[in-house]
């Protein structure tokens, strides 16, 4: 889960990483008040989309009145689908040079990875590899000052600035660990005050979803479409796609394989849905009902029963059929645990189930677009 910029900076400050000490506001009046304290400022929309600046979500103001006017423009605006309800009022700073530093989870090395560069201020993907310092952290030991100092050296910092960088990076790592982050990034890490001080001018802080249970302090920000939020609330992995055949499968790999198979036969999948291993009748029925609500051209259910019991999936489908009816073509493929009973339950409700995945996928494509489509 991504944190808003103002929260990210709050986490930074909490761990000794200097920021502009900006003020978060929800009304133009508050912004005017804040600007009075701060002086010439930037009014920044707090939304979790990239390219805020270009989209008009960041505006400069030299006086409190100007700041208020800019806030009136920004607050309530629709920024790439998100309504702005908070702005961060940051001081305008004169930047001498922009550095970059981040900590991420390196899956292959199984270690946190620090990236740092003297070429900050742009997306790190656009910086040449040889201009980036890569350093893994031994997670059992943690990040010690010496390693931060060594990184400082490699990006060309000396003297007092190297000390500042060391403190910033060690603090950033503590925040990364304490809040189970999957990404913390300071970009730009700005050199200001005539080259004497480093501050986090902008930052990102993504907390890992699987660790959120430990961090009730963060306001929940859910990303995704309304339908995605609805199905994910059931506890299932769901991604909306732009096709028209709704898909339900059990297991992430199987769900992906099902989409690929449909596509192979000319189908256009409407979604990725991992109906889970060992889910009960109720969540499966809810998920199925949600798919039905999108009015697809067909629904394809592909179950290889392992922990998932085919009979329960069949019951869930039949439950929805009885409650609301199923008015789009439905193709079910079912093998594995309790598959005979599952197919029986479906047959009793007038639904024929396949056992062969290829045949079933072809049938789903035909059901959606007609024969020879």
């Amino acid at each position: 889960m991504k944190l808003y910029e103002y929260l990210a900076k709050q986490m930074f400050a909490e761990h000794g990483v200097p920021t502009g000490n900006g003020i978060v506001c929800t009304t133009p009046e508050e912004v005017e008040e804040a600007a009075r304290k701060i002086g010439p400022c930037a009014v920044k929309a707090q939304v979790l989309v990239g390219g805020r600046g270009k989209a008009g979500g960041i505006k400069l103001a030299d006086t409190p009145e100007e700041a208020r006017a800019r806030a009136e423009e920004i607050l309530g605006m629709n920024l790439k689908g998100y309504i702005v309800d908070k702005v961060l009022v940051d001081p305008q700073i004169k930047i001498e040079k922009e550095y970059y530093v981040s900590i991420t989870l390196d899956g292959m090395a199984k270690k946190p990875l620090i990236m740092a560069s003297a070429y900050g201020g742009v997306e790190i993907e656009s910086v040449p590899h040889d201009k980036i310092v890569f350093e893994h952290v031994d997670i059992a030991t943690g990040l010690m000052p010496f390693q931060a100092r060594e990184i400082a050296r490699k990006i060309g910092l000396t003297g007092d600035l190297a000390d500042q960088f060391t403190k910033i990076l060690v603090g950033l790592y503590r925040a990364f660990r304490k809040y189970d982050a999957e990404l913390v990034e300071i970009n730009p890490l700005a050199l200001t005050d005539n080259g004497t001080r480093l501050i986090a001018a902008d930052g990102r802080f993504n907390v890992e979803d699987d660790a959120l249970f430990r961090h009730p302090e963060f306001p929940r920000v859910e990303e995704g479409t309304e339908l995605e939020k609805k199905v994910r609330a059931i506890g299932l992995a769901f991604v909306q796609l732009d096709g028209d055949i709704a898909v339900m499968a059990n297991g992430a790999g199987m769900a992906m394989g099902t989409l690929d198979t449909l596509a192979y036969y000319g189908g256009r999948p409407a979604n990725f849905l991992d109906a889970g291993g060992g889910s009960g009748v109720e969540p499966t029925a809810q998920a199925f009902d949600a798919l039905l609500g999108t009015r697809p051209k067909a629904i394809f259910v592909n179950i290889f029963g392992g922990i998932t019991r085919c009979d329960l999936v069949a019951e869930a489908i039949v439950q929805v059929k009885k409650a609301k009816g199923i008015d789009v073509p439905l193709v079910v493929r079912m093998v594995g645990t309790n598959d005979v009973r599952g197919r029986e339950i479906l047959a009793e409700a007038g639904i024929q189930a396949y056992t062969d995945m290829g045949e079933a996928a072809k049938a789903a494509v035909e059901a959606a677009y007609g024969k020879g489509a």
Partner: protein
Amino acid sequence: MAVIIDRNTRVIVQGITGSQGQFHTGQMLAFGTNIVGGVNFRKAGQEVHGVPVFATVHEAVEKTGANASVMFVPAPGVKDAAFEAIHAGIKVLVLIPEHVPTQETMEIMAYAERHGVRVIGPNTFGIISPGEKVKMGIMPNHIYKPGPVGIVARSGTLSYEIAYNLSNSGLGQTTVIGMGGDRVIGTNFVDALELFNADPATEAIVMVGEIGGIQEELAAEYIKEHVRKPVVAYLAGKSAPPGKRMGHAGAIIEGNRGTYESKVEALTAAGVKVAALPWEIPDLVRDALK
């Protein structure tokens, strides 16, 4: 023959008294697994399917000589339980649970490495060696048969589909390894390839991969350098759009990393036949074994 676990493996079940733990202990016993104990501090002294429950892993190891553990504890308890197993001398650790925070998985991996422990998972269906009548995991018992194929897979159900197709075609398995769908996992493709390559009973290797990460690309490099047995692969996620996480934490195309095309290209260049559809795997294996 098999890799990692065989008929002599002495297995304990951490979290044996939960509903998942109880159910799968029954399934593992039915498959023939030598389950010597279970662990739950509060329920020590009880039995589950006739298996004694111990208070701690240390007690279980002391009293049974266990050397492997399969874990069914809730995600927030996995780190402590994994460290306990490693500290107590367990040498094969199968982590079934999903949703383990990645930083904790990293800690587990570092500790396991220091103590020479093989970890499978987390977020895995486990490992099974049909000819040895042993499994540590949640896969269905009936779809596997003893035979010459080693399988290593990132996802569960998709590998079931493929194992089922192989078994139905008369191609049984030495061992099937579930790598797990998380971003950080213990045993990966390269580790599994190394084991299968060295296992005399394994004649062909099937990889079940997916989009995201660079595991398949690294496997391709390893195959080119070291593997002299035929390798066949199926990769899921060809039709997935970039930037969307397809269920597994690791199954996401970020920037232009982890794409289907890059994986197919790397594997093909290493001489691996990549199937377009899951059920093409048996024929590709059969051809390769000729």
